[in-house]
C-alpha cells in the first residue's frame, strides 16, 4: 500500500512539475466554464439551477483529455528505460500499474474539485438538486476511471506516446459513441447487448440521478479489464509473475 502511494505521489508530482496538470486543469475549466456559463445553452438561458449542461460538456472534454494524460504513463518509461530501473526495485508490476492509475484519477478528481464553485453558485441561485448533482459527479468520475484504465493499457503496449494517445482515443470512441450508433440500427437481444456496452448509456442513466448497480458493475468491469490487460502487457517482457 505504501509502495503504491509512493508511486502515485511521484507520478502526481511529475504531472504538476511538467505543467501537464496545470494545462489540463486550465483547459478543462476553461472549456466547461465557457459552455456552462457563457455560451450556447448555458444556465442563464435554460433558467434552471441544474448542472446537467456542465456534465455533458465535461463528458466530452474528459474524453479527449484523459488519453493525453495517460499516454506517457508507461510508454515514456519504456522509451527512456526507466521502467527497468523501477521494476527491478522492490515493487511488483501491479503496484506500479495501480500507482500510476491512481495518480491520473486523482488529478482528474482535483480538476473536478475545482468546479465546486459552480455547485455553490448554483445552490445560491436556485434550488439545486443535490442528489442529481452528486450522481453527475459520480458519473464523471466513473467514466474517467474507465477511460484512464483504457489509456493506461494503450500506454503499456507501445513506447510511442502518440500511438498510445491515438489508440486510447480509438478504443474510447467505440465506448463513447460507436456502440450506441450500432445498437441504434439493431433490434433484439444483440442490439441490447451492444447498447449496454456503451459508456453513454450508463453515463446518462447515472447522471439522471439513479445509482443502479448495473452501471457500477459496468464501469468497474472496464476498469478491471483495462488494468488486467495492462498487467498482461507489462508481463510480456517475460518476467516472473
Amino acid at each position, binding site marked *: 500500500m505504501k*509502495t503504491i502511494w*509512493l*508511486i502515485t505521489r*511521484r507520478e502526481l*508530482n*511529475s504531472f504538476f*512539475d*511538467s505543467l501537464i496538470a496545470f494545462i489540463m486543469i486550465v483547459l478543462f475549466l476553461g472549456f466547461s466554464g465557457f459552455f456552462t456559463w457563457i455560451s450556447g445553452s448555458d444556465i442563464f438561458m435554460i433558467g434552471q439551477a441544474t448542472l446537467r449542461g456542465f456534465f455533458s460538456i465535461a463528458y466530452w472534454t474528459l474524453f479527449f483529455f484523459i488519453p493525453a494524460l495517460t499516454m506517457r504513463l508507461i510508454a515514456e518509461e519504456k522509451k*527512456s*528505460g*526507466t*521502467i*527497468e*530501473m523501477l*521494476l*527491478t*526495485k*522492490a*515493487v*511488483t508490476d501491479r503496484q506500479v500499474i495501480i500507482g500510476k492509475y491512481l495518480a491520473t484519477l486523482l488529478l482528474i478528481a482535483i480538476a473536478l474539485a475545482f468546479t465546486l464553485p459552480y455547485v455553490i453558485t448554483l445552490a445560491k441561485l436556485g434550488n439545486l438538486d443535490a442528489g442529481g448533482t452528486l450522481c453527475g459527479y459520480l458519473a464523471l468520475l466513473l467514466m474517467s476511471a474507465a477511460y484512464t484504465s483504457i489509456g493506461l493499457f494503450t500506454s503499456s503496449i507501445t513506447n510511442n506516446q502518440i500511438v498510445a494517445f491515438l489508440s486510447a482515443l480509438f478504443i474510447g470512441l467505440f465506448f463513447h459513441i460507436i456502440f450506441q450508433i450500432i445498437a441504434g440500427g439493431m433490434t433484439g437481444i444483440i442490439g441490447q447487448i451492444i447498447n449496454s456496452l456503451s459508456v453513454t448509456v450508463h453515463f446518462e442513466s447515472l447522471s439522471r440521478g439513479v445509482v443502479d448497480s448495473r452501471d457500477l458493475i459496468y464501469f468497474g468491469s472496464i476498469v478491471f479489464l483495462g488494468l488486467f490487460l495492462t498487467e498482461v502487457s507489462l508481463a510480456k*517482457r*517475460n*518476467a*516472473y509473475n
Partner: protein
Amino acid sequence: MDIIIENLTKKYGNQRAVDNISLKVATGEILGFLGPNGAGKTTTMKMITSFIAPDEGRILIGGRSLADNPNEIKKNIGYLSENNPLYEDMPVMDYLNFCAEIQGIEKTRTPERVIEMIRLTGLNREKHKKISELSKGYQQRVGLAQAIIHNPKILILDEPTSGLDPNQIAEIRKLIRELGREKTVILSTHILPEVEATCDRIFIINKGKIVADGTAETLRKQAQGSDILRVKIEDGEPDHIFKSLQKIKTVSMVEFADRKLNKFDIHCTAGEVKREIFNMCVDKHWVLTEMTPFETKLEDIFRELTMN
C-alpha cells in the same frame, strides 16, 4: 549473499541470447563480466535482477530461488543498468528520496541515507539540480547512488564507468572496491584494465556461452604458455645477434622489433631465458641496454576467446 546460477538459458526467437550458463559468485566477491557486444551480458544481468525471467534454469540468491520470491530478494539487489535510465525531470534529492523509500527504507532514516549517498558519490554541489541538467558523469553518479542507497548485499553494475572522465573512473573504481569488501558485486564492462583493477575474478562469455572463468592470472596462464621479452642489444650486427638469440634452447621464436635500433621480441617458454640472454651478451661482448617482459595482455586473451 551468494549468487548461484544454474543452466540459465534465455531465447529471443530462435537466437539463444544466453545459453546454458552456470556460475557461482561467493559473498564478497567482485566478478568482472566480460564479453563482446551482444554476448548476453546484459540479458544475464536482467535475469539476475528479475527484470526478465529465464526460459530455462534457475537463479538462487542467498540460497533462495529468485523465481519464487522475487520481491523479497529484490530488496537486497542494487542495480545500475546499462544506459543508466533516471527520472530526468526530478531533482537529485527527490529522486534519491524516492528510491530510498521505494526500497523499503524507513521514512525516518531516508534523509540520513540520502545525505550519505550524496557525500559518497560527490554530488553535493549538484544535489538540488534536476537530473536532466547534470552532465553524463554526474548522472552516472546518481545512478550509482540509487543502486547502493538501500545498502544492498548484492550489486549488479552494467558498465558503471561509461561516460566518466579518468578522475571519476578512478574514484568510482575505488568506491566499487570498497563496496566489494562486504558486498557481492557483478560488474560488466568493455574496459579491460578496469576488470584487472577492480575484480577478483573474471568471467568471459561469447554468444551466450561461457568461454573463460578465473582470475586474471589463471586466464593468462591458460591463454598461451609463452612470455614475451623485448631486448635491445648494442655493439653487434643485427643478423648475428638474431641468429645467436635463436640458438638459445628456451627461446621459441625471435622477431625484429626494430632492426635499426637492434631491438628484438623474444618468445620464450621458461624463466631461465633472461639469464641466458645476459650470459650470451657477456660472452660476445655485446651490451644489453633494455630487457622488458611483456605480459600477455588481457586484451589478447579476450580477443582470442571471443573471435572465431
